[in-house]
């Protein structure tokens, strides 16, 4: 952005020397107007974020028994969750999935962004738009489209592999569903991340490249030593997005579970498990405990991660 940020000292319109009654009144008024602007969002924030979180925590402390009605059980639901194989398997799955998915997505989107930044032709401009397009597709529809492409009945994989006399891999099978989902999510989000990185690259002052070239740097060196470090904030941002998104994985496996009969159980991810507990089994207390535990785990993961990678001028400062 071309407009420079003012330092906070310059930004305050308030003179500190001697607050006359009029100035004090103006300051108070300033403060009230500020709150008024924030208030509408503040109400929604309290009702639909703090409210549900607090309520979920409250509910998670109780248990509905067949005999004796609802009982206060303190952290029993959490103890149950963290010893519940279904929940732990789900957590383990989304962790494994993130560890493979996030680097893969970042490398692909970074590579595309670097190519698009370096080569400007009509074709690359068109490609940029088309690679971004999957972002506009609902996760449900994306998963259905790929589910069809994977399926034995509708998909082209059989044809393609048949040409080489090979058997097509069944990406909906229990062994390969991991890769099937990996592909759906990469396809859906790589373009969005690519646009974020691309815009960041476009914001770099091109005279830096000329200076580097004069010093004898080649295109690769410029990309790795100048471009990548300068967009590290954008890289961090998409890493955080991807992490938050993947840990709450729900729509894609929920939809594909119908096509991939037997490969995706109702406890495949923590969110699916919470959904099953709450809606199929009407076990709202335990469902709330899982939701709350998931929210807290994600929050802590991201916060710790940001804290470890923090630097001046980044997201948290």
């Amino acid at each position, binding site marked *: 952005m071309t407009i420079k940020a003012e330092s906070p000292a310059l930004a305050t319109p308030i003179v500190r020397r001697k607050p006359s009654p009029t100035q004090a009144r103006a300051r108070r008024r300033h403060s009230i107007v500020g709150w008024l602007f924030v208030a509408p969002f503040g109400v929604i924030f309290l009702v639909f*974020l703090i409210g549900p979180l607090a309520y979920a925590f409250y509910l998670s402390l109780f248990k509905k028994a067949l005999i004796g009605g609802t009982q206060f059980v303190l952290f029993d639901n959490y103890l149950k969750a963290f010893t519940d194989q279904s929940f732990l398997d789900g957590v383990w799955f989304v962790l494994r999935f993130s560890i493979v998915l996030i680097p893969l997505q970042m490398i692909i989107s970074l590579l595309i962004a670097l190519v698009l930044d370096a080569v400007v032709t009509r074709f690359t401009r068109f490609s940029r738009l088309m690679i971004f397009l999957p972002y506009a597709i609902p996760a449900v529809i994306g998963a259905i489209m790929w589910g069809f492409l994977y399926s034995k009945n509708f998909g082209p994989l059989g044809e393609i592999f048949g040409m080489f006399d090979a058997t097509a891999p069944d990406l909906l099978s229990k062994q390969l569903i991991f890769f099937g989902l990996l592909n759906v999510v990469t396809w859906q989000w790589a373009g969005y991340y690519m646009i974020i990185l691309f815009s960041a690259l476009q914001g770099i002052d091109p005279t830096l490249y000329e200076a580097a070239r004069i010093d004898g740097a080649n295109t690769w060196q410029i990309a790795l030593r100048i471009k990548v470090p300068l967009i590290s904030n954008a890289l961090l941002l998409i890493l955080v997005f991807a992490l938050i998104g993947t840990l709450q994985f729900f729509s894609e496996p929920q939809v594909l579970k119908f096509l991939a009969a037997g490969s995706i159980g109702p406890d495949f991810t923590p969110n699916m498990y919470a959904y099953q507990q709450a809606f199929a089994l009407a076990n709202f207390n335990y469902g709330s405990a899982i939701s709350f535990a998931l929210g807290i785990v994600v929050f802590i993961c991201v916060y710790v991660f940001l804290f470890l990678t923090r630097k001046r001028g980044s997201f948290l400062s």
Partner: protein
Amino acid sequence: MTALAPRPMRTQPKRRNIIPQLFLGALLVYFLIPFWWIVVNSSKDASGLFGGGSALWFADNVDYIGNLTELFTYNGGIYLRWISNSALYALTGGVGATVLSVLAGYGFAKYRFGGRRFAFSLLLGAVMVPLTALVIPTFIMLSQLQLTNTVWAVILPSLLSPFGVYLMTVYTRDAVPDELLDAARVDGAGELRTFVQVALPLMRPAIVTVLLLSIVATWNNYFLPLAMLSDSKLYPVTVGIGLWQSLASANNGGGTSLWSLIIIGSLVSIIPLVIAFLSLQRYWQGGLSLGSLK
């Protein structure tokens, strides 16, 4: 914004650009294959789908009109209902979330009120809370107020967009100079008039971005409406097609006619957003990176 300014032409030998462009071309095939598949297969009837012809090419019988007619008349035109529900949720939820974000972002960026630092760090924390973790608790909360299975159960939670407020704050802080606001105040403009006539025009690029992001998020949402709604007349198109898909999978063979509806229904449902993105690209291309430029 420098991101939108045209860059000076680079002098590069044309030959060296071939390999990167081939690389892009290969990727393009990968990213477009699902679109191609769905466009081709929307033209087929059940026998075309299951008849063993090529999955990536048209069958002998190309019948878009027939499939479209069936899509919009099936089950009393329920599909059109779903599409209009999606539009209603996306527009009200998206516009509402944007209005709240714009107001709050301006408040955070340009007023130094007591408790601002605390409120803003609370907001930053909220950006990191996975919103789907709120769905089940919100459902239980709204069910006590008898609000589940109404349009409000989808619209009201969609108004929450901590990331939108964060984006607006960061953008407004730099794009709207304090001197300009002070000058307007000295000239006798009230706070509201200063906001509407001086600040709002300067915030426009970020407003378009936040609007687009929140409309897409609401249009694409699946978990929230799936949990909140039980009446299929209130479903948005994502939940509706998900329902068809589970029905078609459940009675394998008996439900063959549904498959062609699912395919053409998916195609029709993605057209509005694809058009929106292609026609608004001037706005979102620079805007999406706002959060990271700071």
